């Protein structure tokens, strides 16, 4: 195999990776709000914490961005009432109720 053939193999991998990349990157988190996001959709939410139900070993709190919803984050935090936060989360149904499954929470 010479350097040209090696470059061609690299190009093939690049194209294969590119196709996979193109089909995956579209489902990213986008800025949204509680009432506009559909079930199973992901989004970035900005708002205030109305009430913290528990902080450890996972965190459960009521989130408010104009509308309120229960939010579940699978890790312990030090979040408190009235904290402003950005949530990277997915809306889901749990026990028949709508809630946010939080992937990441950033305190503002």
């Amino acid at each position, binding site marked *: 195999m*010479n350097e040209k053939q*090696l470059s061609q193999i690299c190009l093939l991998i690049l194209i294969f990776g590119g196709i996979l990349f193109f089909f995956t990157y579209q489902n990213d988190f986008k800025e949204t709000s509680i009432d506009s996001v559909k079930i199973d959709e992901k989004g970035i939410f900005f708002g205030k914490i109305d009430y913290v139900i528990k902080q450890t070993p996972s965190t459960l709190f009521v989130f408010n961005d104009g509308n309120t919803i229960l939010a579940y984050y699978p890790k312990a935090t030090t979040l408190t009432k009235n904290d402003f936060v950005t949530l990277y989360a997915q809306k889901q149904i749990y026990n028949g109720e709508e809630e946010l499954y939080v992937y990441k929470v950033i305190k503002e």
Partner: protein
Amino acid sequence: MIIFLLLGILTGTITGLIPGIHSNNVSLLLLASPLFGFEAVVFTLSMCITQSFVDFIPAIFIGAPSTDTFEGVLPGHKLFIQGRGFEAICLTVFGGIIALIFGSIILSPFLIFINESWMGIRFFIPIILLFILGVIILNEENKQKKIIIVFVIFLAASHGLMFTDQIFPLIVGYFGIPTIIYSLDKIPLLKKQNEKTKIEIKTFFEGIIGIVGGIIVSVLPGIGSNLAAGTIRIFRDKIKTENYLVLLGSINTSAFFFSFSVLFILEKTRNGAMVVLREQIFFTPEEYILGIATMLLAGGFGGIITIFLAKKATYFFSQNRTKLFSILSIIVMIGSVFLFNGLVGLIVLFFSSTLGFFVILKKVNRSSCLASLIVPTMFFYIFILY
């Protein structure tokens, strides 16, 4: 998203070309950035994978090692002196490409294996490392050399234990500066660099072995690419220089490739860039698939960029500038050590270079200097496991 991909590839190329700068250092900037999720995955992985290819250019052409490539300096630089620097680079690219292709194929069994058995594997590590040191000693041909190598292992181990945060000056001293100075008078004045290469397909077998090395590196803390390569070389005594470069290229790329999967399954990692990434991602399945796609894409790019840059470098070094650049690379290495490790780094560099020279002059196995990594790793495992 494409911007982050291109930015990662560009950063990986720059960090790969400059000895002393590692993608791990650049990744730290991520912590202070607003990059999360897909953006962080794309930037970090494209940078790391590109660097794993480009890394070999300074290692082979000017003999300047990085923490990931120092095992390649001696064999790669040897080919360079013979006018086969471009071929040496292409061999490492071939190894990296094998790692990406076969790494993708074995990804699923790897995920199952790691999920079920990683806790058990690490108990054997100190025993294996001790065994490696024994093999290094026993491989020497006569009693006098065996005594010398025990002395070298003792010194290198004490360096490793004393200067735990000075790995860069240690490897530059053991594998970089002595190699260049020793080869200065051996560089032919008008040695033309060959711009053509021919890679034997059967060397792909070394690429497969390299994947095993890369998996070990990605799973076990304290085991770096070079330690894995050095260990494999000890067990495969008569490995050809060409094959060894394929092996190194494969280990370097697959270490990053599998580290990302380990991060996703165990949420644990030993790789600096992945530690940073852990804080910036959400561990969604989409992120994982995008990460694999990014690594393939950036790997293809990285391979093409490396071949292109190596060709340019080949033309450049054919102009009889090798000696000048060898001297320049020594200055760059000393400068990089001072920049990143300060005055203490220079002192460490003096000690490690002296030992590196001693090993070359006494013609004993240079893998003995790996004791500076092996012994601290052994202690690490002994303290946390037993």
